[in-house]
C-alpha cells in the first residue's frame, strides 16, 4: 500500500521534472515562433493578431536573403566535404593499423573540443596571413574542420559493424579493392553517410562564432541575426529565428533518422 503511493509520487515527480525541462528549453523557442506571427511591432502581450508581415519582410530584405544564400552554400559545401573527409578518415582508421593511429584519430576529433572563440581567432590570424580571409569558401573550410570530426565519428561507428569478411568476400568474388570500397563499403555505410551529411549541414547552419570571425563581409544567417540585434530591436528577428529553427531541426531530425538505423536488422551475419 505505502509502496504503491510512493511509486506514484515518484512517478509524478519524474514526469513533472521532464515536463519542466522541456518547457524550459522549448518555451523561448515557442515564444519566438509565436511572436514572429504577431502583428505588433514589439513583442508584447496581448498578442496583436496573426500576421505574416515580418516573414514577408525578411524575404524582401536583401541582406537577409544574401545571408541565407551564404548559409545554404556554406552548409551544403560543409555537408559534402565533411562527409567525404569523415568517411576517408573513418575508413583509414577502420582498415589499417599504423604507427600514430591514436594521434591521427585524436587530431580528427579535436576541433569541436576547441572553444569556438579560440578556433575563430586562430583561423582569422592564419587565413588573413595566407590571403584567404573573408570568403564563403573560407567559412566552409573552417566548418568542415569541425563537422568532419562528427562525420567521422558517425561513419566509424557504422564501419565497426562491417565485419572484415564482407570486404574480403568482395575481393574474393572479383572486386578490386577500389571497386569493393565503392560497391560494398560505401553502400554498407549509406545510412551513416546520409546522417553525417545532414548533421554536418546542421552544424554549419547553426555556427556563428567562426563565421563571424572569418567571414568578413560575407554574412551567414546567424551572423546577420546578431548584426540585426545589435542595431535596433527588429521584429524581423523573430521571423528569421523561426525559419532557422525549422531548418536546423529538420536537418537534425533527418540525421537522427539515419544514424539510428541498426546494422543488426540487415546484416547477413545475423544469427538465424
Amino acid at each position: 500500500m505505502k509502496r504503491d503511493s510512493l511509486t506514484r509520487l515518484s512517478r509524478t515527480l519524474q514526469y513533472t521534472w521532464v515536463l519542466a525541462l522541456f518547457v524550459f528549453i522549448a518555451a523561448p523557442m515557442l515564444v519566438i515562433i509565436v511572436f514572429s506571427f504577431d502583428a505588433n511591432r514589439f513583442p508584447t502581450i496581448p498578442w496583436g493578431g496573426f500576421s505574416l508581415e515580418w516573414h514577408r519582410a525578411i524575404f524582401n530584405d536583401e541582406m537577409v536573403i544574401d545571408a541565407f544564400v551564404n548559409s545554404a552554400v556554406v552548409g551544403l559545401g560543409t555537408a559534402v566535404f565533411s562527409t567525404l573527409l569523415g568517411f576517408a578518415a573513418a575508413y583509414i582508421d577502420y582498415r589499417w593499423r599504423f604507427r600514430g593511429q591514436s594521434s591521427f584519430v585524436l587530431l580528427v576529433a579535436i576541433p569541436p573540443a576547441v572553444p569556438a572563440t579560440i578556433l575563430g581567432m586562430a583561423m582569422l590570424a592564419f587565413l588573413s596571413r595566407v590571403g584567404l580571409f573573408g570568403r564563403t569558401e573560407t567559412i566552409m573550410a573552417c566548418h568542415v574542420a569541425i563537422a568532419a570530426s562528427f562525420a567521422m565519428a558517425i561513419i566509424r561507428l557504422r564501419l565497426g559493424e562491417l565485419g572484415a569478411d564482407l570486404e574480403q568476400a568482395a575481393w574474393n568474388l572479383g572486386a578490386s579493392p577500389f571497386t569493393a570500397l565503392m560497391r560494398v563499403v560505401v553502400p554498407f555505410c549509406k545510412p551513416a553517410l546520409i546522417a553525417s551529411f545532414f548533421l554536418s549541414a546542421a552544424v554549419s547552419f547553426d555556427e556563428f562564432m567562426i563565421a563571424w570571425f572569418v567571414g568578413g563581409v560575407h554574412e551567414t544567417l546567424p551572423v546577420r541575426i546578431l548584426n540585426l540585434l545589435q542595431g535596433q530591436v527588429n521584429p524581423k528577428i523573430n521571423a528569421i529565428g523561426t525559419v532557422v529553427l525549422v531548418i536546423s531541426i529538420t536537418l537534425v531530425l533527418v540525421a537522427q533518422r539515419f544514424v539510428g538505423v541498426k546494422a543488426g536488422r540487415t546484416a547477413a551475419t545475423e544469427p538465424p
Partner: protein
Amino acid sequence: MSDPFVSLQAVEKRFAGHHAVRGINLDIAAGEFIAIMGPSGCGKSTTLRLIAGLDEPTAGEIRIGGQSMKGIPAYQRDTPMVWQSLALFPFLSVADNVAFPLRMKKIGADSRRKRALEWLDRMGLAGMAERQVSQLSGGQRQRVAIARALVTEPSILLLDEPLSALDAHLRTRMQTELARLHRELRITFVYVTHAQSEAFALADRIVIMGDGVIQQVGKPQDVYREPVNAFVANFIGMNNLVSGQVLSSGADYVEVLSSHGAFKVPTAQPLQTGAPASFVVAGDRVSLTAEGTATDPHLPRIDGTVLGLEFVGSTQTVFVEVAGASEFRVQKQQHEIESLGLVPGRRVSLSWDPRHAWLLPQAA
C-alpha cells in the same frame, strides 16, 4: 599425382610474432574433394586464405592450374569462397548478391540476372530473388552464399567451415547438397572444417593439420584406421591410444608394454627393444564384457569402469575409465548396451582382436 590443380610447396605464413603455417606441401588434383581438418589455431583457415590470395605466404609457392600465384591479388584468382559468416551483402537483394561476381566480370545486366536466377533455381531458391538477405532463414542464406560462389562456374570452390552456423538437421541436408554439387560440377572443393562427420562423409582425401603443419594426408578410412602419429590418433576422437615401450619384437609384430599390460601389435618392420611405441585401437573394434566373464584368454584385455554413455544416433559411445586415469571410448549399438546392462560404475573388460591394433609409425 602427375598434374595437380592446386599445389602448395613449402608454404609458410608468419603473422607478427606468430607462425600460423610452418611449411606445408600439398597437391590437390582437379575435381578432388579435399577436407582440411584440425583443431582451432592449427592453420587450416590460413591455408585456405593463402590459396584464395587473401593472405600472401611468407615463404614458399602456391600454384593453381600450373600457374604461380605469386603477386596475383585475390580478385584476379577466381577462387570463390563460402565463408563461415556467409558474408552476404546485406544491402543487396538475393538476386543481386548472386549476380555480384558476374557484375565484377562486367557481364551485362540481363545476362547476369538470368544466370543468377538459374543458380537460385538450382539451389531451390526460386521465387526468393527479390527478397532481402535478412528475410531468409539460415539454410536459405547458406544456399545463397553457395550460389554466389558458384555462379561464375569456377574450377575451384573454397569452403571455410560453411556449415558451422547451421543446426544439426540442416547441416546433414546441406552436406548432401554439397556432395551432389561436387558430383555434378566435377570441380575442386577445398573444405575446411573441424567437424569430423562432415569431412569423413564428403571428402575424397583428408588433410589433418596441427600446429601449422600437415600431420597426415589420406583417404578418410586410412586416416581413421591408420593414424601416423599420436596427434592424429588423438584428433580422430574415436581412437584409443595406448603408449608404452617395445618389450620384444617378432617377425610381423611387436609386443608393447604399457601401464595396462603387454600387448601384441602387428607391424611391418621390427622395432628395437625398449624403444617407445604407441598403438591405437579404433573405438568400434573394442568388445565389452562384464568384468571377469570368460573371453578368449589369448586376446588382449584391459579392465575398467564405465564412466558414462553418450548418444550418437543409433550408436552410443561408452566412456570407460581404465588404470592410470586414462579413458577408453567404445562405440556400441543400443541393443548391445542394453543386453550388457552398461551403466556408469559397472566394471567391464575391454578386449580386441590384435590384428585390429595399429602401431603408430612415428614414436609418440
